[in-house]
């Protein structure tokens, strides 16, 4: 039986390692540091969102930490702990539980994908830690909403009533069409815009779903070309949008149908991906009108990347949380939550205030703008 002890030792060791290894939080929290968590997709299909969001947060972090936050006379610095959610609910929930329980953060930024936001929102109430989402679009994230979960950008349901009247004014369409990514973002965009269009007497005649990873859209665009709607909304990530608009131009869809892109298609990156000629004369819904060139230059110098709304949201989100901590003058998450409710901050994207209205809770409200690409320039349409 001499083998027994050796085996027993191995099992006990593995068991101990499993437990200790997991709760490997830093033992003595550094008194001068405020820990804020950030959960976002850095790998998988949604990796673009996470990368851009992180860039915005880093820029804001430098500004905040330069002068530090003084709480009851003590200067503090912010430290961000980021984990990958791969746009998968179980991973996002694991991130939030680790941030809350292990890293003991006072506030959380993220997630980007609506499926993850919907999974982590109830947890924030459970752990009583405030969280600000970067770009989740689905209505159900803040409707009925959660006490500890905040969203700055307007949800799909809010964008439609603000955007559609002006779209109807521009195109005066009778019929409309949709070609959208087959995920929570794509479907919530289509559902709310289709409903709002119907209120204005515009009939939706064609709806095309494509799966993430699809690169050839000629199949769907040919159907849209046959039906010839007056305006066609194309919804997805910016790389998908660039492909759609190029292939639409190639097949001649744009001869009878005006192309109207979702939020990502108002980004400068569309110009670099698709080229000025392909996007000439197309419109897009934009989450930011114009942003001061100095910030755009800072982003280009630092990351050699064009402006993207996720950068802006990440930047604003961190500043909003920093302001809330400063006004709360405490590291108690509940006090920070109360301070967040009273946020009144002029951000890059617009005036940030979290209100509860029309069944929404802790939801920001601002009017999205409409952009038109004219000879390679992103012009804001009033």
């Amino acid at each position, binding site marked *: *039986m001499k*083998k*027994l002890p*050796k*085996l*027993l030792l*191995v*099992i*006990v060791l*593995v*068991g101990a*390692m*499993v*437990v200790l*290894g*997991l*709760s490997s939080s830093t033992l003595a929290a550094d008194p001068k540091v405020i820990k804020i968590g950030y959960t976002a997709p*850095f*790998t998988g299909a949604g990796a673009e969102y996470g990368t851009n969001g992180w860039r915005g947060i880093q820029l804001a972090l430098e500004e905040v930490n330069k002068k530090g936050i003084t709480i009851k006379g003590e200067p503090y610095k912010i430290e961000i*702990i*980021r*984990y*990958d959610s*791969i*746009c*998968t*609910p*179980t991973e996002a*929930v*694991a*991130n939030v*539980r*680790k941030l*809350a*329980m*292990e890293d003991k953060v006072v506030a959380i930024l993220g997630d980007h994908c*609506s*499926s993850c936001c*919907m*999974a982590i929102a*109830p947890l924030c109430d459970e*752990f009583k830690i405030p969280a600000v989402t970067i770009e989740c679009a*689905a209505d*159900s994230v803040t409707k009925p909403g959660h006490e500890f979960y905040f969203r700055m950008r307007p949800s799909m349901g809010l964008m439609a009533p603000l955007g559609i009247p002006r779209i109807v004014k521009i195109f005066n369409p009778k019929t409309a069409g949709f070609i959208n990514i*087959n*995920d*929570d973002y*794509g*479907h*919530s965009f289509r559902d709310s815009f289709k409903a709002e269009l119907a209120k204005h007497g515009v009939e939706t005649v064609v709806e095309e*779903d494509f*799966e993430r990873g699809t690169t050839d859209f000629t199949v769907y665009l040919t159907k849209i070309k046959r039906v010839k709607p007056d305006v066609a909304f194309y919804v997805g990530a910016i790389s998908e949008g660039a492909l759609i608009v190029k292939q639409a131009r190639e097949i001649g869809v744009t001869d009878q149908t005006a192309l109207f892109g979702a939020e990502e298609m108002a980004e400068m990156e569309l110009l670099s991906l698709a080229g000025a000629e392909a996007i000439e004369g197309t419109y897009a819904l934009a989450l930011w009108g114009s942003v001061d060139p100095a910030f755009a230059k800072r982003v280009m110098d630092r990351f050699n990347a064009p402006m993207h709304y996720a950068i802006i949201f990440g930047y604003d989100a961190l500043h909003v949380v920093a302001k809330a901590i400063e006004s709360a003058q405490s590291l108690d998450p509940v006090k920070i939550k109360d301070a967040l409710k009273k946020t009144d901050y002029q951000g890059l994207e617009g005036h940030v205030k979290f209100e509860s209205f029309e069944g929404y809770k802790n939801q920001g409200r601002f009017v999205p703008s409409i952009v038109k690409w004219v000879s390679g320039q992103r012009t804001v349409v009033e």
Partner: protein
Amino acid sequence: MFVASRIAIAVSIIILIFIPQFASNYVIYVVILAMLFAILTASYDLLTGYTGPLSFCHAAFYGLGAYTSALLTLRTGMSFWQAFPITGIWVFLFAAAVGYPALKIRGHYFAVTTFFFGHFVYLFLLNSRKLTNGPLGLRGIRPPDSILGIDFSSITASYYLVLFFGVLIVGFLHLLVKSRIGRSLVSIRENEDLAESIGINTSFYKVLAFSISAGLAGLAGSLFAHFFRFLHPTDFAWMISEMIVIMALVGGLGTLFGPIIGAGVVKFFLELVRPAPELRFILLSIMLILVLLFEPKGLVGIIRRIRGEK
């Protein structure tokens, strides 16, 4: 069963029982997922480890179980305690219906076909908006109704529920594998023609193993649905099937407790690497290749070599 392994199992169960008492909420959550994956890898081992056919659609049955149980409770007002067994039986029958024609295909053809079947189930869950609410995810799933005064909305109660069913399922698998039915399955894995020549109805047993393995994955799905209370198709995509295969292989196919150890080790490894997002899947696939290169029988193979067995 060697005395040493039996003690090792008893010690592990004791450790698992005491974890919620002193571990943080995050550790409990991770161990619950690890246990669910242990049920998945153990049930996967019944098919690929013991009976032979290599399949890549185990996450599809996990997903079908989760959505079936969630929809039964949401749409028909059934309680978890009724939906749980019904889900297991439904996924078992569904797998038998799909498995019968599929298992006529042999070797690599079968592996690649299951790869596609898994993706097709993912597409179905994603695209049937009316049934599964598609990409918007299924919310508001109620935790199991409280029995014996235990309120299952707390994570510790869910932990013990998953542990209880986990031990039951693994116990059932252990009895099955040690019985003559298990020996027949292994005969099929070793040599299908010879097994047929000694009177084993190989197609029946293969479909049986495929269906039991799927039904148990469906039960794991049901447990997950009522613990996590929010379902989205991405949790059941082919990447998860891939993960189950790696866990089972790293643990050691055909040993039942190998894949369970594999689930724990790989899940622990993924949590350790959580701060380095980009590296997770690179290191995972390198781990698989190393196992294939140096010890195809996985951790159990290594343990056996240490204990100087065959």
